[in-house]
């Protein structure tokens, strides 16, 4: 599986039916046919993705509370996003969370995928099962389990670490450690998913390439650096984008473990959207914040696409 944005689907040409590749009526017929296939998805995506996008944009310039009258407030909500210290803090916290979660999750996933793919690894199936199992646990449940493991009084992990001379204290009440902890929970839950995507990418690498390199006397390290990793670059781009986007949406385990605390140190953008939108009913402000989240997500995705698109062209 790979991102092939610059390789258009239209490169595919159906076999020319008798009478040559269709223009005019045949083409129109194909478009109608495609529309039939696409209709259910397009209606739903239109109603629940495209329209809400436009609606959130309009709301972000109002002081709507969902009830009664709303008035146009211009850029006031956006001004609040860039001046309100609490909001700026949430933006910074989200960046910190992404900086902690994304590299850790992607690197752990890649290393473990390479290890699982190692020809001399015994019990491959058992290891794969164990490593993937956390992915079926919800972040909320993972949060319950980790909170209990890390409990300063009765937490088993805390107790074991104390035995090893490491004093963690109450990590969820420590403004410096709360964020790394909630990021760790997400790494634990998600690396298996990214690992499976890497495994699929590894299986796409033709065995003949590896065999040729072995014949040419390439060491395992050389094969990794010059064959495996370059061949994985599409998969890597895909995983990185997915992980980064997931990081920007951090919510579940934070809602459960810290509620955004202590002292707002784990308050993320989505926590802020949830609270302002569904608790304070400041729909206009929450929508402006939603658009900031959207803008950051789009920007990062575009950077990724451009960067990896260019690298892939260089390689060809």
């Amino acid at each position, binding site marked *: 599986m790979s991102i092939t944005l610059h390789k258009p689907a239209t490169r595919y040409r159906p076999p020319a039916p008798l009478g040559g590749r269709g223009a005019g009526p045949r083409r129109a017929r194909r478009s109608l046919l495609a529309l039939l*296939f696409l209709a259910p998805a397009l209606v*739903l995506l239109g109603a629940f993705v495209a329209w809400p996008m436009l609606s959130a944009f309009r709301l972000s310039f109002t002081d709507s509370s969902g009830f009664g009258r709303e008035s146009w407030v211009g850029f006031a909500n956006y001004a609040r996003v860039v001046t309100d210290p609490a909001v700026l803090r949430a933006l910074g916290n989200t960046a910190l969370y992404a900086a902690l979660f994304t590299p850790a999750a992607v690197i752990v996933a890649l290393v473990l995928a390479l290890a699982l793919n190692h020809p001399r690894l015994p019990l491959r199936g058992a290891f794969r*099962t164990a*490593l993937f199992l956390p992915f079926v646990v919800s*972040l909320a*449940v993972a949060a319950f389990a980790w909170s209990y493991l890390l409990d300063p009084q009765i937490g088993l992990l805390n107790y074991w670490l104390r035995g090893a001379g490491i004093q963690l204290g109450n990590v969820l009440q420590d403004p410096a450690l709360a964020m790394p902890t909630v990021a760790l929970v997400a790494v634990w839950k998600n690396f298996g998913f990214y690992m499976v995507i890497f495994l699929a990418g590894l299986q796409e690498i033709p065995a003949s390439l590896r065999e040729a390199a072995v014949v040419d006397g390439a060491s395992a390290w050389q094969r990794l650096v010059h064959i495996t990793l370059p061949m994985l670059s599409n998969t890597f781009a895909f995983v990185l984008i997915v992980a980064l986007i997931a990081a920007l949406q951090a919510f579940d385990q934070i809602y459960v473990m810290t509620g955004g605390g202590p002292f707002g140190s784990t308050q993320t953008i989505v926590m802020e959207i949830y609270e302002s939108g569904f608790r304070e009913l400041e729909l206009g402000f929450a929508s402006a914040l939603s658009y900031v989240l959207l803008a950051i997500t789009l920007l990062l995705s575009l950077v990724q696409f451009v960067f990896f698109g260019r690298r892939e062209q260089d390689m060809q």
Partner: protein
Amino acid sequence: MTATDHRRPRRVHAASVMLVLGMLLAAAASLLPIAIIVFTAFKPIAEVNAYPPTLIPGEWTLENFSRIFDELPFARLILNSVVFAGGVTLFALAFDSLAAYALARIDFRGSRVLLIAIIASLMIPFQATLIPIYQLVADLGWVNTFAGLIAPRAADAFGIFFLRQFFLSLPRDLDNAARIDGASEFRIFRSVILPNAVPALLTLGIFTFVNNWNDLLWPLVFTTEAEMGTITSGLTLLTGPGGIIPQGVMMAGSLIAVLPLAVMFLMIQRRFIESVATTGMK
């Protein structure tokens, strides 16, 4: 024979030992939180709060499981989770695969623009449109209904993109033969592409089911009555301020939340993991 040739087997051996040790450590880290859920769920309350803490119960009990059904309308929450996650999965697989087929196999005007639009919408986090979606669902009178939980997710840009990629990887000879024989596109979709895409459909179906079963924010927003929540959202009601629930009870609820997915994964994992990259032509 040189010295290097003699050294090689021993070095390889050391590397293998490191590999296995590293993997054992990774597996232990993976399994510890799951083990704590399983074991704590069967611990008597006194043991759960005892110091020093232990992993495995000294005495096994089911009291935590009966207690979770007292604390929450838990049977109803299980049903809600099944209907919500199952409904989203079935609808999304049907609608996503239809759309993906058009994008992968039908050469029509605008397909590239549409594909870019779908990939672009992949980047829209649902959290960013949650408020208008909620308003729409509320206007339709669908808050606290399965329709409100399911309909907004019954088609998914990621699913369309994922399946399109898979369909593209299927050899064209597969469907060209049918096309030359005069089969309709829908017939090719149903009889040629879908049977060959079972591994991808399973993968996507499992991801969709797991993600929805496990989602917290969505049921938190679209259900306001405890009776309409999912297991995941229901359990969080017990943790808030004022909710002092013994960890054993929380872990019993957590175990019930995890068990269906874990069993499902263990049953079909081989197919699930190995088949993403393989095609129907072997």
